[in-house]
C-alpha cells in the first residue's frame, strides 16, 4: 500500500514543480530578453528647455544661483545689446541732435522780444539750483559712461587701444556706480520740490495748441512751468526713477532677481536711458543757446522780468500778486 501512495506523491510533486517552472519561466525570459531603458523616466534637456526656457536643479555648493544649469535666453539679450540697442541709441541721439541743429538754423535763438527790462525776479532759489546742478552733473557723467558701454567698443576702442580703453571704462564703471546715488537723491528731490508746479492743467492744453511759442513768435501763457517743462519734469522723474530702479537691480546682482530679471532690467535701463539722453539734449539746448535769458534762471537763479512776462506770464502775475511790493523782484545791479 505504501509504495503506490509514494509514487502518487512523487508524480504530484513533479507536476507541481513542472507547473511552477512553466509559470516562472516566461517571467525570467522577459527579464533577460526585453531591453531595459533606464532613461525612460529621465529628465530630458530639450523638454525642460521648452517648458521653462531654463533648467534648474540642486547643487551642493553654497552658491544657490549656480543651481541654474542652463539658460539660453542670453542669446536674445545679446542681440538686443549688440544690435537693437545700438540702433535705438543711435537713432534717438542722432535724430534729436539733427533736429536741434536744423531748428537752430531755422529759428535761431528765441530772443526776449521786448528786450531786457533790467528788473529781475527770483526764479529758482539756491537749494533748487543746487539740486538741479547736482542731478545734472551726475546725469552727464552717467550718460557718457553709459554710452561708453554701448558705443565705446565700436567707436572708442579702435581709436585708443585696448589698455587705455579698459582704464577709461573701469573708471567710467566706478563713476557710473557711485554717482548713481547722488543722481537718485537728486531725482527724488526734484520730484518733491517741483511736483506742485508740474501737474498738467488746462493752461497746458492751450500752450500745446499754440505750439508753445516754439513755432512762430507766439507766447502762450504759462504758470511757473509750461507744458514743455512739465514734460521734461516728468521725463526726469519717471525716466530717472526707472533707470535708477533698474540700475540698482544690476548694481546689486541677485538681491532681488535672477539672471532673467537682470536681462530685462538691463533692456529697460538702456532703452530708457537712451531716450532720456535724447530728451535731455533738447532740454540743454533750450536752456542754453536756444533761448535768450533762459540759462540765467538756473545759472543765477533769477530772470529778467520781461523774459518772465513773455514765457511765464501767469507765474509772474502770481508772484507779483503774492509780493505786491515786489519783494521777490530784485533791482538790477
Amino acid at each position, binding site marked *: 500500500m505504501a509504495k503506490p501512495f509514494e509514487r502518487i506523491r512523487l508524480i504530484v510533486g513533479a507536476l507541481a514543480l513542472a507547473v511552477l517552472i512553466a509559470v516562472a519561466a516566461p517571467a525570467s525570459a522577459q527579464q533577460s530578453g526585453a*531591453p531595459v*531603458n*533606464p*532613461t*525612460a*523616466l*529621465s*529628465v*530630458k*534637456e*530639450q523638454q*525642460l*528647455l521648452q517648458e521653462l526656457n531654463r*533648467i*534648474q*536643479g*540642486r*547643487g*551642493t*555648493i553654497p*552658491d544657490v*544661483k*549656480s*543651481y*541654474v*544649469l*542652463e*539658460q*539660453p*535666453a*542670453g*542669446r536674445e*539679450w*545679446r542681440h538686443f*545689446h*549688440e544690435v537693437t540697442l545700438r540702433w535705438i541709441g543711435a537713432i534717438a541721439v542722432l535724430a534729436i541732435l539733427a533736429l536741434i541743429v536744423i531748428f537752430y538754423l531755422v529759428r535761431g535763438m528765441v530772443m526776449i522780444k521786448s528786450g531786457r527790462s533790467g528788473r529781475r525776479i527770483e526764479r529758482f532759489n539756491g537749494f533748487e539750483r543746487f539740486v538741479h546742478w547736482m542731478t545734472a552733473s551726475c546725469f552727464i557723467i552717467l550718460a557718457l559712461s553709459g554710452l*561708453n*558701454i*554701448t558705443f*565705446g*567698443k565700436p567707436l572708442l*576702442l579702435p581709436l585708443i587701444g*585696448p*589698455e587705455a*580703453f*579698459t582704464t577709461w*571704462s*573701469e573708471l567710467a*564703471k*566706478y563713476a557710473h*556706480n557711485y554717482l548713481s546715488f547722488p543722481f537718485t537723491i537728486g531725482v527724488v528731490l526734484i520730484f518733491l520740490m517741483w511736483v506742485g508746479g508740474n501737474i498738467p492743467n488746462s493752461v497746458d492744453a492751450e500752450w500745446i495748441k499754440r505750439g508753445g511759442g516754439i513755432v512762430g513768435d507766439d507766447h502762450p501763457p504759462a504758470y511757473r512751468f509750461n507744458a514743455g517743462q512739465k514734460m521734461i519734469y516728468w521725463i526726469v522723474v519717471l525716466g530717472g526713477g526707472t533707470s535708477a530702479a533698474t540700475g540698482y537691480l*544690476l*548694481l*546689486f*546682482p541677485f*538681491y532681488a532677481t535672477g*539672471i532673467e530679471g*537682470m*536681462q530685462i532690467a*538691463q533692456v529697460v535701463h538702456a532703452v530708457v536711458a537712451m531716450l532720456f539722453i535724447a530728451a535731455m539734449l533738447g532740454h540743454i539746448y533750450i536752456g542754453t543757446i536756444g533761448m535768450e535769458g533762459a540759462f540765467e534762471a538756473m545759472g543765477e537763479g533769477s530772470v529778467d522780468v520781461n523774459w518772465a512776462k513773455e514765457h511765464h506770464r501767469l507765474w509772474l502775475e502770481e508772484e507779483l500778486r503774492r509780493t505786491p511790493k515786489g519783494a521777490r523782484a530784485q533791482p538790477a545791479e
Partner: protein
Amino acid sequence: MARMKFLCDADRCIECNACVTACKNEHEVPWGINRRRVVTINDGKPGERSISMACMHCTDAPCAAVCPVNCFYTTADAVVLHSKDLCIGCGYCFYACPFGAPQYPKVGNFGSRGKMDKCTYCAGGPELDFSKEEFEKYGSNRLAEGKLPLCAEMCSTKSLLAGDGDVIAQIYKERVAKRGYGSGAWGWQTAYRETIAT
C-alpha cells in the same frame, strides 16, 4: 587644430563632485568662486540626472560678443579665454552666458564685481605659458603641457569628457550604441548649435 569641447554623460554622472574639487585645487580657485559645479535635476525623484557644468567654450560665444571692452579671445583650440587685465567687471558676460559660467569675486562696496573668473579649459590666459602671473590670474595651463582639463581626467565614471569635439562625440556615440540608451549631450545645442545623433 582640434575643436575642444566638454561633454557630460548625464547617465554616468554620480554627482561625486570630484571634478569640482579637482578644478578648485588645480587652479587654486579662491573661496566663493566655482569654475565648475554639479547640478542635479529632479533630485531624489525617478529619472534624476546630474550634470557637471562649467564654461562650455561656446561656438560664437555670447560672452565675447557682449563684452563692452572686448576682453575675450578664442584660442586655436576654440577655447574661450579672457584677459583679466582688460576685464572691467561689468557683469555683462554673466547676463549673456547660458551656463552661468562667469564668476566675480566680491570686491569693494555694494556687490561691486571684481575681475571676472571662469573655466579656462585648463589653458591659462594671455600671459606667458607657465608664468607666475598666468597661474595667479587664471590657474595652471595643462593644455600647454599637452594634458586635458583635470576635471575630465579625474572623473571617476568617465562621465565628463573633454577633448576634441569629434573624438568625444564618437566616444559618447559608441557608449550609447553599446548600452542602448543615452540622454544626450547636455548643453551642446545651446553651446555648439549641434547635438550628437545617437
